[in-house]
């Protein structure tokens, strides 16, 4: 205790500014709450993944994928079958929906960017596309039902489900296509135009190829979303048990199959639902992963 600490003056001055215990506590508490909230958000994800794997993997087997559901939900001894028709149906319906919505979606996006910019018409179109983004998925099913089933005497069909899904995908594809196409540098377009290329050639040979990876990513994500939708298919594609490749007839699909199985009292059927759910999620994940891989290699985004 001999020499006075030379830092004493500074320390005394700093002491006035020091962090009080209360503030320190509040900071710690806030940080803890934020971290806690984040963990809370991730818990359902972990649980869902766990249950999907725990209950779904058990149902997976060769016959699971290769036999149709039998519709026998009450008798324990008889076989309940697999989900083949559901998988085939989902693939077919979603493929058709993509074939319909992707060209149209990209077309509308192209129009919005290349030709319609700034006009009131473009604003109206964009407004309606935005409206479509917010429409509840079941309404799409109702739309198609009204247009194609009511009063026409015809009934459920796979392609009608595809149309409903295409309506759902359209705003998603258009929006992401527009974002990506806007990212194509104007200088690229100008260079091509300055070389004397006609507008359509600029679009076809320069704009679209440059935007392709980004477009692919957006498309894949839209497809993944559509594959998981149930409500639009309930009253359009109907459901059936046997595998059916004819899109103009009733067609099964994974989400509808799961939905129907959920209400069953039989354990085995419920387990099949988990297996189907795992299959569906796996398909969606694969699409998502491919989409992200492509996005990473994109020269634009």
């Amino acid at each position, binding site marked *: 205790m001999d020499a006075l600490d030379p830092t004493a003056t500074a320390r005394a001055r700093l002491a006035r500014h020091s962090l009080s215990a209360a503030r320190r506590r509040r900071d710690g508490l*806030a940080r803890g709450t934020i971290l806690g909230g984040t963990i809370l958000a991730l818990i359902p994800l972990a649980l869902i993944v766990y249950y999907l794997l725990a209950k779904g993997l058990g149902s997976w087997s060769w016959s699971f994928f290769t036999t149709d559901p039998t519709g026998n939900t009450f008798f324990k001894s008889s076989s309940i079958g697999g989900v083949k028709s559901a998988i085939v149906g989902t693939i077919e319906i979603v493929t058709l929906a993509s074939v319909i919505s992707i060209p149209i979606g990209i077309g509308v996006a192209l129009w919005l960017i290349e030709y319609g910019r700034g006009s009131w018409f473009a604003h109206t179109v964009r407004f309606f596309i935005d409206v479509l983004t917010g429409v*509840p998925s079941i309404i799409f099913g109702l739309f198609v039902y009204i247009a194609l089933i009511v009063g026409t005497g015809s009934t459920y069909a796979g392609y009608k489900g595809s149309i409903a899904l295409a309506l759902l995908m359209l705003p998603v594809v258009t929006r992401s296509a527009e974002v990506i196409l806007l990212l194509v540098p104007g200088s690229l377009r100008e260079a091509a135009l300055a070389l004397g290329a006609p507008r359509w050639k600029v*679009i076809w040979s320069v704009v679209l190829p440059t935007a392709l990876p980004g477009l692919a990513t957006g498309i894949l994500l839209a497809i993944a979303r559509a594959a*998981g939708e149930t409500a639009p298919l309930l009253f359009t594609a109907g459901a059936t048990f046997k595998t059916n490749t004819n899109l103009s007839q009733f067609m099964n699909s994974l989400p509808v199959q799961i939905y129907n199985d959920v209400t069953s009292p039989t354990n085995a059927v419920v387990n099949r639902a988990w297996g189907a759910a795992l299959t569906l999620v796996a398909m969606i994940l694969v699409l998502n992963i491919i989409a992200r891989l492509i996005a990473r290699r994109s020269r634009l985004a």
Partner: protein
Amino acid sequence: MQASTLRAGGRSTLERPPLARLPDRALKYGLTALAAAILALIVYFFFRLVGEARPAFAKFGVLGFTFGQDWNVSAEQFGALPMLLGTLLTSGLALLIGVPVAVATALYATELCPARLRSPVTVLIELLAAVPSVVYGLWGIFYLAPKLQSPEQWIADRLSFIPFVGGGLVTIPNIFNAGLILAIMILPIVSAISREVMSTVPADHKEAALGLGATRWEMIRLAVLPYCRGGIVGGAMLGLGRAIGETIAVTILIGGATQMPTHLFAQGNSLAAVIANEFGEAEGLHRSALFAAGLVLFVLTLFVNAIARVIVLRAERVHAPQGAAQDPRGPGPPALAGTPGL
């Protein structure tokens, strides 16, 4: 025109033969027609929907239908209030539970998270959006709802003095569970929008706060949250829109009751769920009533989404007048399943 630019035949090299311009014309008019067709299609659907719903509205009146309390199929009496209430209650619960958690995840990812963890955490939250609605329903009804039954009963017993919350018997499909699942489902979108707004807070303001000797939390409170208020509200509204329109998970978890909801932990119904449940075998007036419910739902989501977009756009315009976004509308809310590079 100089003689040298004339080719044999009298046409200048500067002109293109009309035939060569055809593809351009075709493309332009073709695409314009496409855009117009889409517009027409949407308008057509809307009018057809109104048409199908008309019988029900004619019989009960628009207000009578929307706020009527009895939904009785056999008596051909249709009032959608139980469903409307169910929709609003579950969505409200989804906001109440989901938005704070989503904001917390966004704050964590942008302000507190160590740099290497940022990407994984973000991807994980986004993964919640990849789970299809029906799988949420499946997991909810077979895992979450049964697990929560005793805690919910405990709460209902303890809080029996609060009307509508406590005092009843907890059923497994119930309004609260539907709301809880919705909260989980809107997490990704609210989190993504909040994150986007938070990442635009200028470093200036954050440094000003830190320079005054603020702790991390105080800086967030001074510089980040006030700045992001508008954007977060907009994101919450978009989440609300999503929650209102959500069909399958709610159908599975809410129960399909046709009377007015008695308490939070009892079965209920929602506009989307009643359609999903009853449309298959509905005929005549019943079917028309379901279309009418669909119309009410449609208008409700339109309204909420419109408000949401205005709020989000305004928040972005106020804070980023330099207009860094290439999208002419402003970045807009990320359409999760359709935005590349998410």
